[in-house]
């Protein structure tokens, strides 16, 4: 296929052929994602250190998050990963309308995720669980009996990590929205062909990476110390 006219058009002069060009861009994107892994890895490490140090208080603070909203959001993000994968598939098989449809679906599902996250943040502001001068953490009812000797300062550390980690994750999603919008515009203009769809493939990698970060954030922030 490297000798067809459209292939020559998309092949940059410093690459030998399209396979090499594709391989190089994928490898470059993975190098970027590796830096992202180490970036989020530092935050996960900080979380683990404080989780071990303030085991009980972290468990108590974690139970104030809504498990319904958290689980729904996990499912929504997995759906958006599927639609993103389908967009890449549509690009690889040359279905322009399908690319646009799946990218729009991905964007919508991402919007639902951010919307639900916004509701959760709003609840936390209402409950005064946002670290700062107005922070207040008092457990009531059965939870107060289940978790004894809870240190409010340790709970504040939990919520600091909660807002940092979910906030950075949400920021990555917002950047993803910009990238997907750019792809939709480019797809509408017919920029992608089965010979050349690297931008779709690479934004796909980015989007799936953001999904993976959430796959780990969900159990660590929402599911620790749940009890019947």
């Amino acid at each position: 296929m490297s000798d067809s006219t459209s292939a020559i058009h998309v092949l940059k002069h410093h690459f030998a052929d399209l396979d090499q060009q594709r391989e190089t861009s994928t490898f470059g994107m993975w190098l970027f994602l590796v830096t992202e892994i180490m970036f989020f890895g530092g935050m996960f490490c900080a979380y683990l250190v404080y989780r071990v140090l303030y085991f009980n208080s972290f468990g108590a603070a974690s139970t104030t998050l809504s498990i319904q909203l958290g689980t729904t959001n996990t499912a929504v993000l997995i759906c958006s990963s599927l639609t993103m994968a389908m967009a890449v598939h549509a690009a690889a098989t040359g279905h322009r309308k399908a690319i646009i449809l799946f990218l729009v679906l991905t964007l919508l599902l991402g919007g639902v995720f951010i919307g639900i996250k916004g509701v959760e943040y709003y609840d936390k502001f209402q409950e005064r669980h946002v670290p700062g001068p107005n922070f207040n953490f008092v457990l009531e009812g059965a939870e107060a009996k289940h978790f004894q000797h809870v240190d409010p300062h340790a709970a504040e550390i939990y919520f600091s990590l909660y807002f940092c980690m979910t906030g950075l994750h949400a920021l990555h999603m917002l950047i993803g929205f910009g990238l997907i919008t750019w792809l939709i515009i480019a797809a509408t203009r017919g920029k992608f062909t089965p010979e050349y769809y690297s931008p779709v493939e690479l934004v796909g990698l980015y989007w799936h990476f953001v999904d993976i970060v959430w796959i780990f954030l969900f159990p660590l922030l929402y599911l620790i110390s749940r009890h019947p």
Partner: protein
Amino acid sequence: MTDHIVPVKTYLLVFLALLVGTALTTGMAFVDLGPFNGIVALTIAMIKAVLVVLFFMHVKYSSKMTRATIVSAAVFLLILLTLSMTDYVTRPWSGTYGAGRAQSGNEK
């Protein structure tokens, strides 16, 4: 073209597995397994992440160089986490972890 096109069926199967994993991890969180709750949750998360990397991110079909890069990233992340945790987890054992910390160490 050596580029491998993943069949739609594979995507759907991985998608279903991810949803089942999510339901499973949420369900298991309410079963009291003692210290194994965290291990079960992280194992399910690892399996989900590997499924996404292999199929959604096409690493099952990618070059050896790309795979080696990803594996080395995972190894370095594990070094970061295990070495940090061996430090912090074992500090209270020596009994020299500072008087102020003793209280939070006994917190559980």
